[in-house]
């Protein structure tokens, strides 16, 4: 075991370096204007067009730059704690009695979720662009915490926009951001949730674009964000691919990840897209159920439209107004989804399903009791799909599920649902 761990650590840096640089060669999407088929693009007011193009050029110039990649890899290894383990959930596998289940442990990252993979990368770009101030939007608070964390480390001013409703639901993360020195600004407009926080962050950026870098937390927004965030998160899939081969001698049969904006899912899926034998399932939030209308599943039950700088599947009414979403998990409570997911759905490469609040909650308890791992409610949606799918698969099949975050932040939500005051 120790020998295995040692060799992995020794290999970590060159492995990450070469893979990150290589990813540019096989990128066919998005196209030069940020389109994934009919999706994506750059739908913003004119003021942001030049700053977005500057960001794209900066990103393109650094993504293959040895100094940048070296700094990123060192940070990911020594600050975030990468590589994150691929853990064989033996008892849970036995309990479900079908496919072998492996968990990609993004919950073990510094700050407790996959979000930091991206904020580290974007903050390094901010520093190179000479920006002194970063802003971010957040729903559950995980991306806000990850942004506040890297801002603290780099000595940058940080403002996090968060819907007033979400601030009420996520008091611990709000306090955490403030401890880290960030200013948390409550957003009182619209539905007072993640989508409105994103609107407000965009308004801040357009006003302070000279000194401010906007760290978008997911694979949505105007080009280059969907591609850039994907590339920073693809470390998840690159590691999982190599770990699965090392630990099982082959590639997995199925990948499963939850999809809100879709960054942890794209991060896991992307390095496997060319592997025809690997099927992929993205799990949206069905809330109270797709037929109730109270959900957050644009890919399963929405239709194409334009919001937040890109064309994608959206939750909207017949007039094209964005409608309020519902999910037990604040991190999935978003009416849009990354444009690459919209494209992967239409292309038939990834299957998208939805899991209700109740199903996610049951999986939350299962994993906690059977494996001693408390998962985030977001990730619990992916786990709940596994509880349905694994028993129907033979025991020689392998599922890799992205455990995108840990559930400490959700303890109060779960306790309250059970009538317990913590």
């Amino acid at each position, binding site marked *: 075991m120790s020998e295995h761990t040692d060799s992995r650590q020794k290999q970590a840096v060159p492995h990450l370096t070469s893979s990150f640089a290589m990813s540019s060669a096989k990128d066919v999407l998005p196209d030069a204007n940020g389109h994934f088929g009919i999706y994506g693009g750059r739908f913003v*007011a004119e003021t942001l067009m030049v700053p977005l193009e500057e960001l794209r050029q900066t990103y393109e110039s650094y993504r293959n730059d040895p100094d940048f990649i070296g700094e990123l890899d060192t940070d990911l290894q020594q600050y975030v704690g990468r590589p994150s383990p691929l853990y064989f959930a033996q008892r849970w596998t036995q309990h479900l009695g079908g496919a072998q289940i492996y968990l990609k442990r993004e919950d073990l990252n510094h700050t407790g979720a996959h979000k930091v993979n991206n904020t580290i990368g974007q903050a390094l770009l901010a520093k190179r662009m000479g920006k002194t101030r970063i802003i971010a939007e957040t729903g559950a608070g995980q991306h806000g915490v990850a942004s506040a964390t890297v801002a603290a480390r780099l000595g940058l001013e940080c403002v996090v926009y968060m819907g007033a409703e979400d601030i009420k639901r996520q008091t611990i993360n709000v306090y955490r951001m403030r401890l880290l020195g960030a200013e948390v600004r409550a957003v009182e407009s619209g539905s007072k949730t993640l989508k*409105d926080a994103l609107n407000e962050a965009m308004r801040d950026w357009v006003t302070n674009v*000279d000194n401010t870098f906007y760290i978008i937390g997911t694979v949505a927004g105007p080009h280059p964000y969907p591609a850039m965030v994907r590339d920073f998160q693809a470390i998840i899939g690159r590691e999982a691919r190599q770990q699965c081969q090392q630990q099982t001698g082959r590639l997995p049969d199925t990948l499963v990840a939850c999809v809100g904006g879709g960054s942890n899912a794209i991060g896991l899926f992307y390095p496997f897209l060319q592997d025809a034998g690997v099927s992929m399932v993205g799990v949206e939030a069905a809330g109270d159920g797709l037929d109730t209308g109270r959900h957050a599943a644009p890919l399963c039950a929405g239709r194409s439209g334009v919001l937040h700088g890109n064309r994608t599947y959206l939750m909207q009414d017949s007039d*094209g*107004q964005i409608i309020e979403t519902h999910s037990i998990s604040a991190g999935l409570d978003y009416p849009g989804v990354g444009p690459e997911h919209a494209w992967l759905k239409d292309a038939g490469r990834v299957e998208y399903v939805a899991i209700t609040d109740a199903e996610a909650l049951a999986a939350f308890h299962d994993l906690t009791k059977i494996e001693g791992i408390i998962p985030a409610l977001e990730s619990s949606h992916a786990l709940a799909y596994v509880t349905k799918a694994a028993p129907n698969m033979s025991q020689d099949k392998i599922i890799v599920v992205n455990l995108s975050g840990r559930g400490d932040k959700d303890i109060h939500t779960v306790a309250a649902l059970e009538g317990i005051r913590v």
Partner: protein
Amino acid sequence: MSRISTCFKDLHLEGRKALIPYITAGDPDPGDTVPLAHAFVKAGADIIELGVPFSDPMADGPVIQRASERALAQHINLPQVLAMVREFRQQDSKTPVVLMGYLNPIEAMGYQVFAQAAAQAGVDGILVVDMPPEEAKALVTEITQFEMDPIFLIAPTTSKERIKIICDIARGYVYYVSLKGVTGAATLDVASVAHNIAQIRNETDLPIGVGFGIKDAESAKTIAGVADAVVVGSAIIQKIEQQMSRRSNMIEEAAALIASMRRAMDAEINKVTS
């Protein structure tokens, strides 16, 4: 010649500048929109910009956000906005009407259906805030096919190359955003506006309107000194908000703001020409 081009040509002959008030359709009440528009024309407005409410107005400041929310609370949709234009046209066949809003309601209606319905209702120009030229080809084709003008924004951040791209696709007029920010924000830097307008004039003969940050007669007058049109939005909505509870005066108060701007702008022109 489109109603917008005719309007600018006539003004040019008179040595005057266009005054373009913006209101959000359906704010504060659906029944107010057409009377407000008529009152503005009477007070000296040359073109009416009619905002199509959207749930996520990313480029707007708090004042126009609130107007959008009030309109949406009354379920105003794009077909109803077009019905308001149709009603306006029954008494006014001359004043151009420009729809200003975000792309998604138009996507939901369908580009061709929308363009045909808008033209039939008497709309003259379309300004989609979150649709830069790179993403505009399909909709611009429909808009121009129905002889309406696609209107585009130019910002302080816009490069010389982009100004050219924008002016190539734009018709009617171009809308120069006077500052980095959202609607209704901070104060104007007139010197920089004048400098940037000179840059735009190198690339196009289209009239140039200036908006964002014009609050009163004084700032309208200043901008009229350098631009072809003055766009005012948040200041009007604020006036409407102040008067919402005393509804009897609302339209008069809002129109009075337009009239004061008109007087100031014309006085400036008279001074320059005399």
